[in-house]
């Protein structure tokens, strides 16, 4: 957590929660939404605020899939790996994106442009297989269509 702006944001978030254990997960979610990820210092501050050992916060953060320690890429890509998507070839989409973006699932590109994640099910099973870039859902993907869909985002990054 580098900037003072982040620190100010954190203080503001903390002030709207009660000092109870049940605040932990909502707090972490709130901080992640606002900062984009969970910096180490933020987790320490939360532990201090809730008066619980840091290790307990760490345990909770690493238990749930939602939390992450690095910021997402500018374009965050999620590939659905639900049953319907799997049966329709979701894994091939994921592999195609890994090849195309030169990162593994769960990683963010060094240039910060793209990050790639697998999700369990986004509930759009009739459009399987789907990938989601930011908030835009791309239905009925093939490896080829997935690569094509990235082109505008890549052009945008190059500008």
């Amino acid at each position, binding site marked *: 957590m580098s900037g003072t702006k982040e620190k100010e944001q954190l203080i503001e978030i903390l002030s709207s929660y009660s000092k109870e254990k049940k605040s932990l997960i909502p707090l972490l979610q709130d901080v992640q939404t606002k900062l984009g990820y969970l910096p180490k210092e933020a987790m320490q501050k939360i532990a201090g605020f809730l008066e619980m050992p840091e290790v307990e916060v760490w345990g909770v953060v690493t238990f749930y899939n939602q939390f992450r320690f690095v910021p997402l890429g500018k374009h965050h890509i999620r590939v659905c790996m639900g049953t319907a998507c799997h049966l329709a070839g979701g894994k091939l989409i994921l592999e195609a994106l890994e090849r195309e973006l030169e990162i593994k699932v769960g990683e963010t590109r060094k240039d910060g442009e793209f990050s790639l994640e697998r999700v369990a099910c986004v509930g759009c*099973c009739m459009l399987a297989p789907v990938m989601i870039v930011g908030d835009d859902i791309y239905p009925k993907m093939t490896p080829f269509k997935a690569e094509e869909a990235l082109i505008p985002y890549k052009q945008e990054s190059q500008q």
Partner: protein
Amino acid sequence: MIFQEIQNQAKSEWENLQSSTYILIGTATCGRAAGALSTLEAFQGELARRNIEVKIIQVGCMGLCYAEPLVIISKPDSFRVVYGNVTPELVPRLVEGYIVGDDPCLELALGTLEGGEGEAPYIPELPRFEHELRLVFRRCGYIDPVNVNHYIANGGYSSLEKALGRQPEEIIEEVKKSGLRGRGGAGFPTGQKWEFCHKAEGEPKYVVCNADEGDPGAFMDRVVLESDPQQVIEGMIIGGYVIGANQGYIYIRAEYPLAVERVRTALKQAEELGLLGDNILGTGFNFHIGLAMGAGAFVSGEETALMEAVEGKMSTPRPRPPYPAQAGLWGKPTLLNNVKTFANIPLIIERGADWFSSIGTEGSKGTAVFTLAGKLNNKGLTEVPMGTTLREVVYDIAGGIPGDKPFKAVQIGGPSGGCIPAELLDTPIDYDSLREAGSMMGSGGLIVMDEDNCMVDAARFFLDFSTKESCGKCTMCRLGTLQMLHILEDITVGQGKIEDIDLLLRLAEDVKAGSLCGLGKTAPNPVLTTIRYFRDEYEAHILEKKCPAKVCPELTAYYILPEKCERSCEHCVLTCPTEAIKGEKGEIKVIDQEKCVNCGTCMDVCPPEYDAVVKLSPVSLLPSENLSGKGAKK
């Protein structure tokens, strides 16, 4: 305000709406994915351009996901028409035709909601709707989910008013008599649970709604919350009154942002009318509902793990007993039910237990809600009386399998359920019949597979999911499922041994016996049922190194038939992501098996008139000069 006044106000608002022309657009998550928001914009633009004032209401999902974006146009002195696949390009025509003029554009319609209108079918008479019985979904797609008055005008909250005037014991009796069983999947009798919780000692008590719909391939709860959230809230308030709780929580997946937003609005609106909060409807009864958001752990859908999560801890299950009804949230008596269970409650109070128990089978009353996905023509969502057969659902409601391919299996209940083969298609859908077939009702995801789906791969997929999502508390679940997964992985890459099948069966029993919660107890089900009904596929993988469905990449090779390759076309060469296809223009194209990643792009892009790309399994079917690379892979 007394309820009568609230109701009158809501009814007059609803009647005003009915006496005007209005447009309903389904903008639940599935509709949005299909482009409903562009359709919405197109309507707004077209109406503005023509300077016409017509109300557009964003509604939830009617369940006809295959036809999204879905639009209904309602006119006061004419019939309502349902249009499917409404792209923005169609909008000007619909506005010109049915909003401005009197042409209902029936050629674009799925059907009408009032009967006898010539060429367009009458929707309730379509084969799909003849089998369906919509109870929980009766308002979905027809009312504004974020306008509580629409809900109230259509019968909402009258059950709460009725319930508050009765003794909790009477309501428990009613729910018991109705025969309602938990809609989360396990099917525990709801009335009994309510009674335990009512009698349990300890203060304060809590009500929790489990909306952590984690099964991949299931999205009914999402649709309920996005389309008609008030019925769930009403069910929870009644639950709170019955057990004597003043606080409830809805635990909802963070992956469902739209559902979260609509529920939040619904709670606020209910509070504003005094239907939720302090002194509900002037009776002195207080009940508050808070939202708790899931953080992406499948195990949180298990009731005891869910409570750990609400308390702010790692979501690991607790041993039972004590059951949540005795010691749940913060060790206090807690009534925990699924979204659809709560949604059924107002209906039972409104129409009575006798009516409810007349629907369904001996042991399973009411309706079952399923999402229909996989190899089906009409995917979406359906609600049928318990006892409807799988065949009716697959063929009559979902319109069968694309290309009339043979049905292979239906997977019900997600990672906890099992695969049911064609021989058992006449199995009635109820808790007990499905369990007998080795599957379970589960949360209601129904996924159909055809000959192009590999059953070993499907079992591996589910086990991979359960292994990743195991919380790690119980050794057998943490390590037993992992061992099973390794064995399945060996089989799918052609390194399985025939004794592995029996080993899997033994391990499956141990994992079931050695796990505390439903995740581990049911994780082996997909493996057990696929071995039970599709043992030959396991054997083909092991003995012949062959994947009959040609899915497992290590046992399957793509091959370009030289006699069919057109030579001058280069579609495959240019699109292959790994540059695995060789052949200059004018030469026959050949796939370098060493570079091939089995993505199937060449097969997709090969023009249908040539149709030169085929899949071969076992790999030994490849002509010998092609074989080297694939062989080297192993």
